């Protein structure tokens, strides 16, 4: 686990969402879980009760590769409640054809180094914290060279 989630363990926290995102207990790196329709072969993320394409109820978990390319991003300076600004978010295109939107975990002074097309990898991080200090842990994106950075 990363530094960030280790610190969060000290307080109440929830994982959003255990079906979407696995943090292996053997210490290997976290990854996203795609769903592959057993009937039509279409891939989906995150988990859905039925395949939107063919309505099959049988979808098999399909672990996704950990690195994708940044399609676009922004630095949000007016965030939702529970989220600190500035906050980098982006859409990452993965090799299996799935695009995922999530926070990009880089320090404010590194945000200027973000580039469309760059490689980002999936990690675990605190994505929001409510007024009572309750943290939500989920997937975040990090540049390959700086995957251990905190915020």
């Amino acid at each position, binding site marked *: 686990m990363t530094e960030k989630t280790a610190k969060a363990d000290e307080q109440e926290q929830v994982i959003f969402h255990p079906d979407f995102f696995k943090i292996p207990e053997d210490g290997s790196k976290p990854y996203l879980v795609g769903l592959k329709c057993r009937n039509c072969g279409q891939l989906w993320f995150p988990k859905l009760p039925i395949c*939107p394409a063919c309505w099959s109820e049988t979808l098999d978990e399909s672990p996704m590769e950990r690195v994708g390319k940044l399609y676009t991003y*922004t630095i949000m*300076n007016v965030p939702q*409640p529970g989220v600190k600004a500035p*906050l980098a978010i982006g*859409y990452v295109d993965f090799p299996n054809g799935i695009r995922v939107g999530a926070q990009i975990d880089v320090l404010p002074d590194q945000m200027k180094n973000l580039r469309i097309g760059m490689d980002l990898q999936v990690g675990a991080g605190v*994505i929001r914290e409510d007024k009572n200090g309750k943290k939500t842990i989920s997937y975040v994106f990090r540049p390959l060279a700086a995957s251990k950075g905190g915020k």
Partner: protein
Amino acid sequence: MRDVYVIGVGMTNYYKKSPLSAADLGRQAVFNAVRDAGIGPKQVQSIYVGEMPGLSGSICFGQRVATTMGMGGVPMMNVESACSSGALAVNLAVKDVANGVTDISMAVGVQNISATRASGTAFSPDANDPEGVQGITMPGIYAMRAKRYMEEFGATPEDIALVAVKNRRHAMNNPRSQFHDPITVEQVVNARSISDPLTLLMSCPNTDAGAAVIVATKEKAMQLGSKPVRFLAREVTSGIFSNGFRDMTSMEITVRGAKEAYEIAGVGPEDIDMVECHDAFAINEHLYTEAMGFCGHGEGVEFIRSGGNDYGGKVVFSPRGGLLSCGHPTGCSGAAQIVEATWQLRNEAGAMQVPDCKVAMTHVTGGGIYGLDNAVCTIHILSR
């Protein structure tokens, strides 16, 4: 299907902070529309009201507005699909008249954002939306579209600012708009950053307002001596879910919706004199001039630099000042656009008047849901 005409429109001002409650904003708009139509309130046979109860906490909002005006006892429904709510109300009212269900129907759009709990913060995400929980906001999504658009097509922050400057210039002629002072490209680019590259002056402000539109058959319109403003098309569609590599610079739901609307109306972009579009952010006119076919994909940069979207150009976008300078009372905007288009088609738009305005299009989308371009898109094409 029968032809449907606008016989009365009414608006409040666009308020930063309304002195009236949400219900009274609605009542004022209805009062003005009924008087404009020259009918009695009891002649209205069905009423549809667009408002976002998810923001306001309202229950039976429309009944609260209309029944104390003596307009109860008729079919009445509240409709919501985010920013399209007011346009959906118009859609349903027009549909009743078109299908012979009623001869006169009314649509109302209202939002009192400043009285809302959520005011001053970005809209809260649905707890189960995987992108919402990540903190992605509506400005964030449009900022990401802008970023990609700039990368692909060479647009600069100054290009985006051009739209804000133009719509502010238009708003200066609109007595009801929220802003009347001119702004410059430099001011827009240097304003506080909301979500890079979008600044405060590239983003629509929260606003309170009410709008009402009364529609009727051709016979009623002629009896009343209304200046003829007719619906050529009313289009409403929903997003299509995808996890794939969508082109975020091509507004899928608007491309599809505009195509369907043109087909129904029997007109094309070359016939449209003005557009009220969903310019919640200044990048939207680049995206929507393209999506609506006024120029090719990626050609919005040059189209807007050359004033193609302004008076004297191919089509006037947002002659009232748009959401950018009137403000965006979410549940109201879709109806407000149709009120403003009606004034243009009647040649009653004063200093805002688009010369010889024959055909107008109004367009509003709405709803940030992961996997969708937008949750909803609503388009009306009207002609004099």
